């Protein structure tokens, strides 16, 4: 057996590839051969490593030194200095103060940063996602083995219910309960679907899991299928995620090759197979019934509910639909038990949450932390403060349909219940942090424009309401709004929430409602004084 003394990881997300990541990888391999050390060093291409300020990034373990941005012409020097002579190539190191994601976690263990706790991202960026052996060596496929050998389907669901895991797609529905609905539904054919149509602006956690640890999702779907009595699964991956689709495809092939997918898995009576279904670009397909329509080959228009997919889903059969991040928790819960999982987070929202940190902060990227951390902690600790020392004005949590949280709420713990009590929604985990150079009218306009374009137009409140709200906001930003417009906006927001058919329309009025609640004076300045306090809106006097 080869003795590996250093492991080298090279980032291969789309931005790294655009900046020459492939050539960095190729040059690394040839340089390592030139020094004759190819038996001692392993070089692996991994997905997104979280260091968005330093791409393409090269990370050398066990020292966990991050180099970046690395150009192909730097590689020879890097190999000679670090891998051959064992000295850190200081001039190529990524700036230390801008730590984030995986790197923050690695350094936490050295006592320099507050710790992240990783469950769903424990392997992303560490293992080779295109090699099933790497996954198996890091406890992979143990959970399904345990479930098939020692647990009945009911045991699996009880464990999940006890763990208190709640759906991470945004709504926070108890996962174990959803599973029992499908298990109890009548029907000989059932389906398990992983919703990987991650289109919520500002969210890319699912992409990271699929690119960096695709086998964990396949394993979780197997466990789910065993529990609810399904034998077929679909992974619905949005069309824009080409790399994620490719990685999952490889993972499925490898799992088939060693008999982890197919007939009689581990010699049991359980058989399961997974298909990939790529989307074609539609935000609405993340809504679970629209997703079903899309798999069946139609327009992604949400169905009327009830019946819920748990009783009548794909082709009318009982169907379990879970988000990628939710599923990624499942193997760890089955391996370690519900009690272990409850050790993270808050009593009502156990576990961790993956957040994407975006906007006017020093460090953007992805963190996985226990539920219940506050916005202030995220900004000061993980995001390393506001860019240019500007003042924090507001954050949008959970993507376009999320709430706009003013600075006064930045000490509210971010878990499902505390946020609900404060009248805001946690959503999918995107944290868009804005400084005082942003105008609330301008932001609301951008968000309303998003809904106006992404509405499937099936039901009237959403099709007409979003158009109308957008044109009112456009007028306010031109300095031609009236006080009546504000009453109309509130009414539209209410109607969207009460009358729309699906979650898209029901939440589309949230941002406008929130800015009128928390930032009314700033909006009124646009109307009464014809001034944009942040100096963003054009105020050119045009009225639509």
């Amino acid at each position: 057996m080869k003795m590996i003394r250093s492991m080298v990881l090279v980032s291969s997300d789309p931005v790294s590839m655009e900046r020459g990541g492939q050539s960095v990888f190729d040059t690394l391999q040839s340089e390592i051969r030139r020094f004759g050390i190819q038996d001692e060093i392993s070089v692996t291409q991994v997905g997104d490593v979280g260091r968005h300020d330093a791409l393409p990034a090269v990370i050398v373990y066990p020292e966990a030194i991050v180099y970046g941005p690395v150009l192909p012409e730097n590689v020879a020097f890097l190999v000679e200095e670090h891998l051959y002579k064992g000295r850190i190539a200081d001039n190529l190191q990524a700036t230390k103060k801008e730590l984030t994601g995986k790197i923050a976690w690695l350094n936490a263990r050295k006592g320099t940063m507050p710790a992240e706790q990783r469950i769903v991202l424990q392997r992303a960026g560490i293992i080779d996602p295109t090699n099933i052996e790497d996954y198996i060596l890091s406890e992979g496929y143990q959970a399904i083995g345990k479930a098939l050998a020692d647990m009945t389907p009911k045991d699996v669901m009880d464990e999940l219910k006890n763990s208190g895991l709640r759906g991470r797609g945004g709504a926070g529905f108890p996962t174990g309960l959803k599973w029992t609905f499908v298990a109890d539904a009548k029907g000989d054919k059932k389906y398990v679907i992983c919703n990987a149509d991650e289109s919520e602006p500002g969210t890319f956690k699912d992409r990271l899991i699929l690119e960096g640890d695709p086998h964990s999702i396949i394993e979780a779907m197997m466990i789910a299928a065993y529990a609810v009595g399904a034998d077929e699964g679909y992974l619905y991956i949005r069309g824009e995620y080409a790399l994620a689709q490719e990685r999952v495809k490889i993972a499925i092939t490898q799992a088939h090759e060693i008999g982890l997918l197919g007939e009689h898995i581990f010699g049991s009576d359980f058989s399961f197979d997974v298909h990939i279904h790529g989307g074609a670009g539609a935000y609405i397909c993340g809504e679970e019934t629209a997703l079903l329509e899309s798999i069946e080959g139609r327009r992604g228009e949400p169905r009327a509910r009830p019946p819920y997919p748990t009783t009548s889903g794909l082709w009318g059969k009982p169907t379990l639909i879970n988000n990628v991040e939710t599923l990624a928790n499942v193997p760890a819960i089955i391996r370690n038990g519900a009690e272990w999982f409850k050790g993270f987070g808050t009593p009502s929202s156990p576990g961790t949450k993956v957040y994407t940190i975006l906007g006017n902060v020093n460090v953007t990227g992805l963190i996985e932390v226990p539920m219940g951390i506050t916005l202030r902690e995220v900004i000061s600790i993980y995001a390393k403060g506001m860019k240019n020392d500007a003042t924090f004005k507001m954050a949008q949590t959970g993507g376009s349909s999320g709430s706009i949280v003013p600075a006064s709420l930045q000490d509210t713990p971010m878990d499902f219940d505390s946020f609900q009590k404060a009248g805001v929604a946690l959503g999918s985990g995107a944290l868009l942090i804005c400084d005082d150079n942003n105008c609330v009218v301008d932001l609301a306009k951008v968000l309303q424009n998003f809904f106006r374009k992404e509405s499937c137009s099936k039901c009237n409140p959403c099709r007409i309401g979003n158009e109308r709200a957008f044109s009112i906001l456009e007028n306010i930003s031109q300095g031609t709004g009236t006080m009546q417009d504000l009453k109309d906006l509130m009414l539209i927001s209410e109607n969207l929430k009460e009358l729309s058919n699906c979650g898209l329309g029901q939440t589309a009025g949230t941002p406008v409602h929130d800015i009128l609640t928390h930032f009314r004076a700033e909006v009124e300045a646009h109307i009464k004084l014809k001034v944009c306090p942040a100096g963003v809106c054009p105020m050119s006097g045009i009225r639509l």
Partner: protein
Amino acid sequence: MTMEAVFMTEIQAAVEKAILLHGESRSELIPILNDVNHALGYLPAAALEEISFRLKSPRSALFSVASFYHMLSTKPRGEHVIQFCESAPCHVVGGREVWQTLREQVGLEDGETSADGKWSLITTSCLGLCGVGPVIVIDEDAYGNVKPDQIADILAKYTD
């Protein structure tokens, strides 16, 4: 062969390839349309007709699907398609200025294709690259942390 006949052969080849890969089933419609769109750059009416015949699905149903999804186009697009992310995370970190410059430099508005057929400019919703906003995607290349003064250099890469 005339130009039209050449084009028809191309269409039939693309449809044949996609159906062979995914199977002659209505539930595979979106993957089939995705592949044909990718091969031909858009979905010509003749391609939809051919797929409709093969899947035994009405043309109206196919057109309703083809016109619903952003990644499918029923109109020809330029040689290079520029997608600009107009979602909030890119917007608050300088997307507005990038969009302004981009429109000026290619001389197009949202959804337009240039007269010489070289460029198409479209806005898109979030592409999941928010950590490096503002983001532009040209064909299949993603550009992150774009600043207005870099746009001329990025576009120049596509002049051959």
